Structures are given as structure tokens and as C-alpha cells.
């Protein structure tokens, strides 16, 4: 998903769930920051490198795809953007290597979603924002995996956009992707870009939904394609419906996190709270535009009765840089970094415990003592102090 949903729509959802305007802004800021908190950003603010929640295009192009590099990539993308649905999914007559990647496929309402929301409980608005980003992306990025894999994430020429003609009859229009990085997509003409085909299994071009271009991130589009893992079974992706489900589930999750975090259950949607605004939301989701920020911002303004400020990446950088070392973790960015590391730790641990080394090693501190990346010491220390 993009800024229009992660920032403005999340803000709307938080307002509808009863959060205050200020808390809603913090939540949506954190949700959008997940798409910006790369190693470059962390270097700039001198934050812990292990708190990276994304990799920018530049970083991906320089990323190594040896086993260590792949684990690093998978840790980030599987934890925040492609939450695995079922880490024990059956995969008969497949090799272990294939099974490990197959089990990283993202879909909504998996077991890890409940853990993600539970982890955000009572940890502040930053953790809530991260959880909402993860939740929303499970709907948009369904059927792709957060690891470079040709055999899972590839698509082929069987790719159609589903449109309705003037009589309301569904038509299929073939999508022929182009590979120009600089040119924007043109939905009117049906021209979209995707990543180049690379037959190397671990090529960066085969990470996530690169082979489907930006289509999963457009709320208006409905399309049909053959996923590489699907054994020629067609997938119909109805983004307007999925995004609406994502929004209603976010409202429900946010309400739980505000009132009773333990009550959260997957596959539950707060359609009642959303009902008064349902028509407007559906209209925004269906509008044929690559960026719906203006519409969502206007809706948020009407719900809140106030204007929603634009996302400013540097909003909390100053206080973090000027904070004394012993109080950095109490600043907004400090709390965000800790929440990000906790999320990454949780997901990586779950993947490792399922017998899958795709995201690297996860060491149980209680059994083995401290071994690993120094940044995670913060989580241990906070755990000891009871400051989770």
C-alpha cells in the first residue's frame, strides 16, 4: 500500500475507532514511517540499524543476495510488508527449499496477525502504527512472499485487468507491463511497469510483488493472474473489496487496542463504525487514480473536524537527535525503533521456530543467553526493567 492508505486512511480508521486526534496522528505517522525507516534514514538519525523496516530502491540495488543478504532482506520484508499467513502450510512432494519459501506467502488473517496486534498492546502509539501498517499490507500484498524467489513471486503474460463496460458486464483487458523505472503508470491507458524477468531464483527483481508492478498498491484495480506457486490456478484480486476489508479490520483492531487488546480476533471487521462513511470510502477506493491522498485527507478532515497535516519524515528527528543518550529510547523515534525491533524479533522467531531458516537465526535468550546483534540488547534490557 501507499501513503494514501498507510497515512491518511489509517488516521481515518483511528478516529473512527475512538482515538484522539493527536493519538491518531501519531498512529498514522508511525504507520507511514514503516515505509521510510530504511538504513539510510537510520544512519542519518544515528538510530539502531536493526530497526530498519524497509529497504529503499537504492539499498535493494546494492543488497547482496548471498545467504546472509537474503536472510536480512527476508527479515525486513516478511516482518513488516508480507506477513506470512501459515508457517506450517502443507506442501506435499516439495523439497525443503521450496517449502520454506512457500510458507512465507502473505495473506490476511494469519496466526501472526494476532501476535502482531498483541505485541502492539500497551506499547504506545508507535507500536500501534506499525501493527496497522503490517495489517493493511496483508490485504494488499496477498499471494506474494517477502523474500526474493522466482518460483513464488513470478508472474507471466497471463495478466488481465478486470473492467466493467457501460452495461456493467465484466471485461478482461490484457496487461502488458513495461520495464521503465522512471515512467509513471497510466491507469487510463492501462500502462503499468513491473520488474524485469530474472531467471535467477534469488534476484532482487523477484522480491515481493515486483513482478506485478504497483498493481497491488492501487485501491481501484481488479485483476486476474497466475501466481508462480498456484499450479495454474487463477487468482482474482479485487482491490476495492480488499482495501475496504482492510479498513474495517483496522478500525476493529484499533478499537481493541484502545479498549481491550486481548479481545482481538482475526477475520473480524467493524463495519458498524464505518457504515456512516461507507459510501464515501468505497467511492475513494474505486476512483481510478494512482494517488488518493487528497480524497482520504478530505475525508479525514470531515471525520475529525480538523485538517490533517501532511506526513513530514523529519517531524520527530530533531527531538531524537537532541535527546540525551539515556533518554533517546523514550523519545517518539526511540519508541518507534524499539517497537520495530520487537516486531522483527517476533516474526523472525516465529519463522525460525517453524524450522525455516529463510529469515536467519533466532536465539531464545532465556535458554542460550545473549548472542547476536547488539541493537537487540535494548529489548532485553527493557524486558528486564518491565518497560515493554
Amino acid at each position: 500500500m501507499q501513503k494514501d492508505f498507510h497515512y491518511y486512511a489509517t488516521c481515518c480508521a483511528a478516529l473512527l475507532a475512538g482515538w484522539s486526534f493527536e493519538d491518531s496522528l501519531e498512529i498514522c505517522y508511525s504507520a507511514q514511517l514503516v515505509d521510510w525507516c530504511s538504513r539510510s534514514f537510520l544512519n542519518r538519525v544515528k538510530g539502531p540499524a536493526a530497526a530498519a523496516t524497509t529497504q529503499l530502491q537504492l539499498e535493494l540495488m546494492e543488497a547482496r543476495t548471498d545467504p546472509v543478504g537474503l536472510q536480512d532482506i527476508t527479515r525486513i520484508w516478511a516482518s513488516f510488508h508480507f506477513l506470512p499467513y501459515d508457517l506450517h502450510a502443507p506442501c506435499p512432494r516439495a523439497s525443503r527449499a521450496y517449502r520454506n519459501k512457500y510458507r512465507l506467502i502473505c495473506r490476511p488473517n494469519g496466526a501472526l496477525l494476532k501476535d502482531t496486534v498483541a505485541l502492539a498492546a500497551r506499547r504506545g502509539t508507535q507500536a500501534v502504527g506499525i501493527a496497522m501498517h503490517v495489517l493493511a499490507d496483508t490485504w494488499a500484498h496477498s499471494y506474494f512472499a517477502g523474500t526474493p524467489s522466482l518460483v513464488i513471486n513470478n508472474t507471466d503474460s497471463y495478466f488481465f485487468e478486470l473492467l466493467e463496460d457501460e452495461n456493467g458486464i465484466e471485461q478482461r483487458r490484457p496487461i502488458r507491463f513495461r520495464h521503465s523505472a522512471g515512467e509513471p503508470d497510466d491507469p487510463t491507458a492501462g500502462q503499468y511497469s513491473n520488474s524485469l524477468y530474472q531467471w535467477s531464483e534469488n534476484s532482487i527483481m523477484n522480491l515481493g510483488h515486483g513482478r506485478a508492478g504497483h498493481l497491488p498498491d492501487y485501491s481501484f484495480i481488479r485483476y486476474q493472474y497466475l501466481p508462480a506457486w498456484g499450479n495454474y490456478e487463477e487468482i482474482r484480486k479485487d482491490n476495492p473489496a480488499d482495501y475496504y476489508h482492510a479498513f474495517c479490520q483496522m478500525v476493529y483492531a484499533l478499537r481493541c487496542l484502545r479498549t481491550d487488546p486481548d479481545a482481538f480476533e482475526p477475520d473480524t471487521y467493524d463495519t458498524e463504525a464505518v457504515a456512516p462513511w461507507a459510501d464515501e470510502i468505497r467511492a475513494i477506493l474505486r476512483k481510478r487514480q494512482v494517488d488518493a491522498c487528497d480524497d482520504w485527507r478530505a475525508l479525514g478532515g470531515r471525520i475529525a473536524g480538523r485538517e490533517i497535516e501532511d506526513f513530514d519524515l523529519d517531524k520527530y528527528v530533531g527531538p531524537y537527535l537532541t535527546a540525551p543518550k539515556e533518554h533517546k529510547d523514550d523519545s517518539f523515534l526511540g519508541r518507534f525503533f524499539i517497537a520495530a525491533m520487537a516486531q522483527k524479533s517476533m516474526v523472525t522467531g516465529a519463522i525460525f521456530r517453524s524450522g525455516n531458516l529463510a529469515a536467519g537465526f533466532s536465539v531464545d535468550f532465556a535458554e542460550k543467553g545473549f548472542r547476536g546483534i547488539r541493537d537487540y540488547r535494548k529489548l532485553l534490557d527493557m524486558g528486564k526493567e518491565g518497560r515493554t
Partner: protein
Amino acid sequence: MTLGKRIGKVFGALAYLLCVFLLYRMGEDGFKLVCMLMSLSLILFGVRNLLFYFTMARHMVNGKAILYVGVIGLDFGIFSMTISRNQLLAVVLYLLGARAFAGVVDILRAREARQHKAPSWRFNLAEGIANIATAAATVVFGLGLGNMRAVAAIYALGLVYSAMLNLISACQKTAIVYIP
């Protein structure tokens, strides 16, 4: 990375360096070694693709194309091993093709990196120029001057580079702490 994979990478690097040493010691006879290594690498390419097909790509839509790549690669490797004469031309063609192709790919990557304003474009460009210069040197020394020793040296440089990459990869650390 597991310990086994690290050890494998280190052994791989040592094997490359051993080949470089042998090329240095054997002089012009090193050429036969180059030919054998070249054929082996092609055979390995074919076998790797075949293994990839049988372990993973057979589950993939249109995965059978990988099988054909593997079979052709394997046959090409075996074919290159059976050529007994005119090895110089065979090695020159192989080095020329492989290096020129790698150079073009690196330059395209540099172009894309520059479009995205990534600082790595200089490194990619340098790699691309180095690969194309290697291809040109192969043609000059191999076809032009018929200097087998020079062609073997160019091949040895490629092996040293691969060994370094293996060692760097083996030494990278990773671990993560899980809080229950």
C-alpha cells in the same frame, strides 16, 4: 548462514586459489587446466539449473523452461570438454562471450543505478568497464598475439575475484535475539 555453508564457501574460495596457483606453476600447460575448468563451470551451470528445476522450479508455472536451460547448459559443457584441438580459440570465445555479456549487464545496471541516484553506479560502471576490457584483452592476446599464457592469466584474475567474493560472503555475521 549455517556453519556448513560457511565452510563450503571457504573451501570454494580455496579451490579457486589453488587453481590460480596451478595456472601459475604450469605455464602454457595451464591452458589445458583453463579449458577443463571452463568446461566444468559450464557443466556445473547445467547441473545447477537441473537441480534447481527438480527441487523448486518444477512447481512453478512455466518452470519447464529452466529444465531446458539446464540440459542445454550441460550439453554445452560436455561438448566443450570433448574439443581436443584449438583450445585457444575455444577459451578465447568463452572468455570473450562471458566477460562481454557480464560487462554489458554491469553497464546497464550502472545506468539504472544512476537514474535512481544510487552511489553504487560508479562501482557498477567500473566493473562493467573492467569486464569489457578483459574481453578486449582476451581478443588481443588470444587471437591477435596467440599468447596462451596471457589468456590463462586473464582467466586466473577472474578466479581470484570469485575467491574474494566467496571469502567475504563466508565472513559475514548474522544473528537475532528473540524475546519470549
